[in-house]
């Protein structure tokens, strides 16, 4: 009997000690004999990214190629899907434990740069003018602070494109895509009467409406100068032009422009509505060119036209501008030195150079570099249309990249309140300005 108790007690103590001890020992052993011996002379490089789905295949292939070209580098991917990636990066960022290379957007960099976590590219870019000059104008804007470049863009695109189904427009008696705001709202009424949802969007995560629709709509009303003034603290969100933009969005919602379940479905589910011809338009980023070319039924692809929001009455913005730019970048950890840093730069060149740009464009993507010699026949008709559409457009700021994450969340979450009618434009503008006031 007595031995049983002793056993129990011993078991407990052993297990407790083991569970703590194993963590320590395990660490050593995994470093010591795990991959240690094979990679002792190898350069270990970790890269954090979220390109785990179909759209990321090109990127993953490039990493694979890099591995073959650089056998001395042991490239370890720390990849998780986008939402968990953000949680992970926030946690890592709080302790400075970032991967050697990582994908970051402008607003993540705003967080890391003052803490000194990210290395600069100025030197590397200056040493390789061919690489540097290959990029599109302004593509480094979002990643530059005080003249220092902290990130290399991975794409440059418009986040606002209206994809519309010409057949459904014709059926509703609309000859061509509306050119004025009045025509646009009339078209929405006509489409609604013809029994389809005028615009399909999936705003569950509250980013889509803010990013792909409202950013451009707001610019139509306020103009880009207002945005710059606001960033300098010289203009306020309570200014009438911004409030008018909020009003315009709420009016659209009240008209029944959107699918009623806009706030409970995600972007992919909304695209399905467009593919099934239940919706005549969808507003989405340029990346949807890839999705439509791959997933939409043939007849929908053929009937799809591209457009942007028309000018608004009394708007101060340039009607030829769309919210866009280079949203995401590749950055490297400031701790890297020597051969490790060289390998990191080599990898970044690999996924931002001419060749990768060509592949990207031929896969209906939008690279941040000027690609001259690509094979246009490989592009889907939609991608060709996209470049045509963009030829005379210029980019206005993307809210979720230029503003701090806290402000973005308040604006975008507030837009959901606006869509369901639980806040008025005036209330929301005051709330946003309050948060703006707490910053600096």
């Amino acid at each position: 009997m007595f031995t049983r108790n002793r056993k129990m007690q011993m078991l407990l103590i052993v297990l407790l000690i083991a569970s703590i001890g194993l963590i320590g020992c395990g660490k050593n052993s995994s470093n010591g004999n795990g991959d240690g011996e094979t990679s002792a002379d190898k350069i270990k490089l970790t890269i954090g990214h979220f390109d785990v789905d179909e759209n990321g295949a090109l990127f993953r292939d490039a990493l694979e190629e890099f591995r073959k070209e650089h056998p001395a580098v042991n490239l370890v991917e720390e990849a998780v899907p986008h939402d968990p990636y953000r949680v992970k990066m926030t946690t890592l960022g709080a302790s400075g434990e970032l991967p050697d290379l990582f994908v970051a957007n402008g607003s993540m960099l705003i967080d890391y740069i003052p803490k000194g976590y990210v290395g600069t590219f100025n030197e590397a870019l200056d040493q390789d003018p061919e690489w540097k000059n290959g990029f599109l104008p302004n593509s480094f804007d979002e990643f530059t602070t005080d003249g220092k470049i902290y990130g290399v863009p991975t794409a440059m695109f418009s986040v606002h494109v209206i994809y519309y189904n010409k057949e459904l427009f014709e059926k509703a008696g609309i000859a061509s895509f509306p050119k004025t705001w009045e025509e646009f709202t009339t078209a929405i009424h006509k489409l609604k009467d013809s029994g389809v949802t005028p615009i399909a969007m999936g705003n569950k995560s509250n980013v889509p409406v803010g990013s792909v629709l409202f950013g451009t709509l707001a610019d139509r009303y306020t103009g880009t100068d207002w945005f710059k003034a606001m960033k300098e603290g010289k203009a306020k969100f309570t200014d009438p032009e911004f409030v008018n933009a909020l009003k315009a969005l709420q009016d659209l919602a009240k008209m029944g422009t959107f699918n009623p379940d806009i706030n409970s479905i995600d972007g992919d589910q909304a695209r399905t509505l467009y593919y099934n011809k239940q919706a005549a338009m969808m507003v989405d980023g340029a990346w949807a060119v890839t999705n439509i070319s791959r997933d939409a039924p043939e007849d929908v692809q053929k009937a799809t036209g591209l457009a942007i929001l028309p000018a608004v009455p009394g708007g101060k913005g340039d009607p030829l501008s769309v919210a866009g730019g280079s949203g995401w970048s590749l950055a490297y950890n400031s701790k890297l030195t020597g051969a490790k840093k060289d390998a990191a730069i080599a990898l970044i060149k690999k996924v931002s150079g001419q060749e990768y740009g060509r592949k990207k464009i031929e896969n209906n993507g939008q690279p941040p570099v000027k690609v001259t010699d690509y094979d246009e026949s490989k592009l889907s008709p939609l991608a060709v249309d996209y470049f045509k559409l963009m030829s005379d457009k210029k980019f206005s700021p993307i809210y979720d990249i230029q503003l701090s994450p806290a402000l973005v969340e308040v604006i975008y979450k507030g837009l959901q309140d606006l869509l369901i009618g639980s806040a008025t434009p005036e209330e929301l503008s005051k709330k946003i300005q309050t948060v703006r006031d707490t910053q600096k």
Partner: protein
Amino acid sequence: MSSSRLFKLQAGPAFRYLIPIFCVYAFTVLLPLLISIYYSVRNEGGTEFVGLQNYVALAKDNDFWFSLKNNVIIAFFCVVGQVGIAFLIASFFMTKLLKLEGLHRIAIFLPVVLAPIVTGYLWSLMYNYRLGMLNWLLDLVHIQPVLWLDNPKYVLYSVSVPLIWQYIGLYFIIFLAGMQNISKEVLEASEIDGATWFKKTAYVILPLLKNVMSVALILCITGTLKVFDHIYVMTGGGPGRSSMVMAQYAYNNAFTMSRLSYGSTISIGMLILCALIVLAMSRWIGGGGER
């Protein structure tokens, strides 16, 4: 008399059991909690000490109190739905009228084993406006489809139902275990006296289960006040802030908005409020119970 010595703490058992386990707990839960409190009295970025500034901001934060209100409403639904229904069903199991007891027990407990994210996703499909099971049922009886998760008027109810659905089984099992510990003689005596099901349940079983009931209530309230996973998957607190709860608000602040200090402040505030609510609850349930 002998019990007083028997139930005094002796050095041996304390060092063998109590202290090691407490140390593990302190290292993994209490220490991070202290670090979290430390974050909450520093500014964003952690460069300087700001005292209680974040807490003052929290006290003035309309959205925080709004999410507390939502939490309290959800907790109320869950107390009625989870604990109430579970008790009712467990009491049916004591009537000897029920057939297939074993199968019912297995079925009622089954949802408990699902992961919260699985439940959340499963129910968001059932709530889906176009493809969902609920609107399909409504369509059968020719009722217009309902926007379960989009309409701010219903969304709070909609997110409570999966919580109730999932956890009834847990409280049911706890009650059943408690009821089976009531001595047979007491129950038989009451039956001989001719007590109806209602009388037996209300006047015999319920008073004897006071202890179990307070366990169930405290589990249910602490569980729903910090509810996160279900809401995160189904609505993320939306649309707007209609279904925002404290844990989601803290998460958004810390991870979406990169406001780690304020996120920590919300969590600490939440901990304090939960403790107050539970304290008030256990006082109210009955001073005598805890001795």
